């Protein structure tokens, strides 16, 4: 497969194109399944073949150039793919999780019309294509192709139920907010061209490594601009608003795009461009601050949501914040590690919620669920496994990666990284609080959904059922991965003095640029002792357990619902703020959307219609015509007047010529 990496995305693209055609021909579902799932399956197989080959290769970085994409003036952009540890990790989990979700969709979407079904799979395949291009691209523009491509697919899939206005609006919102981020990304690309003369990652990073001091200002600019892109794509403050709305799409889409893959593209990109952040301390700090604030902010909103998918959505935003926090302290590997584990457990959670929603006939409000644990055991257990993972309960996947992040942040604070130690200390604290909240709201979701008694209607109760195997199989696989995935690929070996056991760390290490100027303050390795690390670990476990227990106290005790209600009454403002997500959407509406709309109306109705057209254009015509209408009366029809003007004219001419 090496040498023809292009085959991997192209398979997906082919699947998309064929499915689009099938959709128009209104082909039957099995055929669509064959094409849709088959193409992704083939791509997955191809990926793993490629990876297997790659692992048996001596070199760590492999660039395949297919053709010159854009060449003009000083600009040269090749259509080329790059396989290195980072992209290897990414394509592996993207194809794998993607395949599972395709499979899941077969069950979940079976109620759709044939045409809609084909369309759905076409979009899904197209998404896979875009995501693979994003991950494989060896330069920023090619990455950008995938970047916008996933945005497009997200748009199409969120708007899949286009006849419902809120879905259509959500889709549009997703695309536009992403566009705002992309704007920064694009500027970053231009800046790269200007600074480095190339946008090939390898070329840029070599220059950065070579002259980190001279390029630090540029790196700051580019790093921040790139991060604007990441903020949009990965739903960080202030552009996170699209992601909760994105839950309008079918649930597998939420799982695939808005949890496992697309939204992590920002993290991937930041990790990919780690050289910039390592060069620019400011940029790195900004990444960290935004990440940490998002992690906490989204977690607080998650506390009060009743829509199961909304809870997951905000948890996604929050988890993405952790990833950026990791990147913000230079722990790019930890970030990617969390991306992977997050993909497992968040996909599992979403698919589980999908399974629940499927069972409840489309109901998403947790207040009308409850007690499902008996009806759908597989869903329940996988959901619990994933929840344990996200909450950071030891040995579960999330624990390993999240704890690594927390440790790195603490380490950064302790080691006074780039002389921003104090700030990193605060960030650590924020992250810990976030972890507590995460555990709380996730278990809240579990308890509200699966425990207690069913609170929906009788009719709904009769429909409750466990999902078909196409849905439960992926759940099971992901559930298992949520449990062991973390330990498997990123065992925190250094805690046991066996760093070699941390497979992903070793594997990804070459990707992280060796930038000389990163100021670790004290020797990082010794800033935090092993004992301290263990202490931290215990602390974070305790935090997670505390969250769990509080949730348990709140939602399973005999006075279950009343406790949070009382709390809400005690702090009405806080409760309202959380329920309304801090009114951020309203704020944006009032501060951005409406003013712009008014500006647009002003431009059109006032500048265009009144000033330019009426005043100047028609005004000029009107004045001309008016002049004509006035002057025509000089033409009195009286011949003696004409004679007079002859005489007068001649007299004047004579006087002038005199």
């Amino acid at each position, binding site marked *: 497969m090496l040498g023809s990496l292009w085959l991997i995305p192209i398979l997906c693209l082919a699947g998309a194109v064929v499915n689009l055609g099938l959709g128009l021909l209104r082909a039957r579902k099995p055929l669509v399944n064959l094409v849709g799932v088959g193409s992704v399956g083939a791509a997955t197989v191809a990926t793993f073949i490629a990876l297997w080959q790659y692992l048996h290769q001596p070199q760590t970085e492999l660039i395949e150039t297919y053709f010159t994409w854009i060449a003009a003036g000083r600009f040269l952009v090749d259509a080329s793919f790059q396989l290195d540890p980072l992209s290897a990790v990414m394509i592996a989990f993207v194809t794998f999780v993607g395949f599972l979700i395709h499979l899941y969709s077969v069950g979940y979407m079976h109620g759709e019309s044939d045409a809609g079904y084909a369309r759905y799979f076409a979009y899904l395949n197209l998404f896979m294509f875009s995501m693979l291009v994003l991950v494989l691209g060896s330069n920023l523009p090619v990455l950008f192709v995938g970047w916008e491509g996933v945005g497009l697919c997200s748009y199409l899939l969120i708007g899949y139920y286009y006849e419902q206005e809120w879905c259509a609006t959500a889709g549009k919102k997703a695309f536009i907010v992403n566009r705002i981020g992309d704007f920064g990304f694009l500027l970053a690309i231009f800046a790269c061209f200007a600074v480095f003369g190339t946008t090939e990652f390898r070329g840029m990073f070599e220059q950065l490594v070579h002259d980190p001091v001279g390029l630090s200002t540029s790196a700051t600019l580019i790093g921040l601009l790139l991060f604007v892109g990441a903020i949009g794509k990965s739903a960080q403050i202030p552009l996170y608003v699209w992601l909760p709305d994105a839950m309008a799409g079918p649930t597998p889409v939420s799982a695939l795009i808005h949890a496992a893959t697309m939204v992590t593209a920002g993290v991937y990109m930041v990790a990919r461009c780690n050289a910039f952040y390592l060069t620019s301390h400011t940029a790195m700090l900004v990444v960290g601050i935004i990440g940490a604030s998002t992690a906490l902010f989204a977690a607080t909103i998650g506390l009060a949501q009743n829509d199961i998918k909304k809870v997951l959505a905000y948890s996604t935003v929050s988890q993405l914040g952790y990833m950026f926090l990791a990147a913000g302290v230079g722990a790019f590997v930890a970030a990617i590690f969390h991306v992977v584990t997050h993909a497992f457990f968040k996909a599992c959670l979403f698919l589980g919620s999908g399974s629940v929603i499927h069972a409840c006939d489309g109901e998403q409000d947790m207040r009308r669920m409850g007690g499902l644990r008996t009806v759908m055991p597989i869903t329940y257990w996988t959901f619990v496994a994933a929840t344990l993972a996200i909450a950071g309960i030891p040995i579960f996947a999330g624990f390993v990666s999240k704890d690594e992040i927390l440790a790195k942040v603490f380490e950064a604070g302790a080691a006074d990284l780039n002389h921003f130690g104090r700030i990193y200390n605060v960030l650590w604290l924020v992250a810990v609080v976030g972890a507590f909240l995460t555990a709380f709201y996730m278990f809240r979701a579990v308890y509200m959904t699966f425990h207690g008694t069913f609170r929906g209607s009788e009719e709904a109760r009769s429909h409750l059922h466990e999902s078909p195997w196409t849905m439960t199989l992926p759940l099971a696989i992901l559930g298992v991965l949520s449990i062991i995935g973390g330990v498997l690929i990123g065992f925190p070996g250094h805690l046991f003095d066996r760093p070699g056991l941390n497979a992903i760390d070793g594997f990804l290490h070459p990707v992280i640029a060796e930038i000389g100027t990163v100021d670790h303050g004290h020797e990082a390795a010794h800033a935090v002792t092993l004992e301290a690390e263990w202490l931290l670990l215990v602390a974070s476990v305790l935090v997670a357990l505390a969250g769990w227990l509080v949730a348990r106290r709140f939602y399973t005790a005999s006075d279950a619902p009343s406790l949070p209600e009382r709390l809400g009454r005690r702090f009405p403002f806080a409760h309202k703020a959380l329920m309304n997500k801090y009114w951020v959407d309203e704020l944006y509406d009032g501060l951005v959307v409406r003013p712009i709309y008014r500006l647009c109306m002003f431009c059109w109705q006032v500048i265009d219609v009144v000033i330019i057209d009426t005043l100047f254009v028609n005004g000029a*015509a009107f004045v*001309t*015509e008016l*002049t*004509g*209408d006035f*002057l*025509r009366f000089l*033409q009195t*029809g009286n*011949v*003696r*007047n*004409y*004679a007079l*003007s*002859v*005489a*007068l*004219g*001649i*007299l*004047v*001419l*004579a006087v*002038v*010529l*005199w």
Partner: protein
Amino acid sequence: MPTHNDLIAVAPEIILTVAAGVLLLIEAFLPRVRRYASELSALVVLTAAYARIRLDLPGDVWGGMLHIDRVASFVDLYILAAVFLSVWMAGAFLRRSDADHGEFYSLLLLAAVGAMVMASSVDALTLFLGLELLSIPLYALNAFLRRVPISVEAGLKYFIVGAFASAFLVYGFALLYGEAATTNLVTMGARVVEAGGLSPLAAIGVAMVIGGLAFKLALFPVHGWAPDVYQGGPTPVTAFLSVVPKGAALVALLRIVDGMDLLRLSHEWVVAASVVAVASMTLGNVVAIVQRDIKRMLAYSGIAHMGYAMLAIIVAGAEGGAAVLVYLAAYTLMNIGAFAAVALFSESESEPHPISDLAGQGWRRPIVALALTICLFSLAGVPPFFGFTGKFVVFRAAVNGGFVWLAVIGVANSLISAFYYLRVVYVMYMQPEPRRAPAFGRAFSISWVAALSAVGVVVLGLFPTPVLTAAQAAILNLVR
């Protein structure tokens, strides 16, 4: 005694004169042949044109009264072309208007002779006489529809203002004669140049002569008669009136302005002439916009067009002179074409010709409408029509002569003019035919005139070189 050359030189005029007489006789004595008066006169005009083309151009003849050279030939030919088109369309027109009198052709031919003589005169006397021979028949021709009040009114107005203006012209010549002690225009010019400036006497004389000639051109401020006369007169006469006197007068004007080298001699002249040119253009175009009668609109457009021509007169010299000639040729063709179409699109001569009557005619009468459209676009100065060539040479002359700002005003005026020319076009093509469409006649010959003019406008617009060459070669004989 007149020499061979003298007679050769005026052979076309003689042909026309004889024909005019013969036509009168036919009118009186041969009622059968009368019907073909239009065709006969057209034939005669062609013969005269042929004579003008084939016969020598001997230069000074008739004791230095006339100068028959290539300028004369150029102007004569375009006068003859205009007369040809006018008489050709007149037949059908007069029959329709119930005024089918042979005098029409005689008078028209005599007027043409007057114009030709006026254009080739190098003596004030013949210039004056030519002008009168041109004017007197036109007084009658405008009032040719004797029972139609507007026609008679047009004749009267033209007569009173015309006679008034020619009185000024004569007085001006008297003063210039006093200044230069000659009636020969060339010598007159040379004396003025020698004197190195205009004496008060000469200034008044020049003003009066130019005023008298400008009357024929309907330049501001001596334009007043034009709209009324155009609107009231019979359409073939209007067509003739709108081009032939203007051509002859422009050449005469050029002869005087250039002969006296007013461009260099008198800064005041340049200023005054510029004002006149700009005012003519602007007034003509602006007022044309608000006209509802197409003939009246064309009259105002004519005022504006003479404003453009005036630009070239200001520049004078070989460049300006050639531009005048080319502009004339263009103006003639498109104007006659337009008037021919207007003659077709009219119910009756006693009625006005509202533009709104043309609604939908673009599709009902495609050929005539297309011809009118082409002529109007040409008048607006849109390439690739001949009118554009005319404007191009005029503006080019202005720019080359250093009058860029005049050219800019000129183009601004072209823009205004486009507004009303376009209106006619959109009425024809873009407005639906009214339920009760006006009953327009179908006259084959008039259609032909319109079509022929339009073809000429297109062909000469695409290939203007022959006209340019002729004009440039001709003008060398005229200018200093």
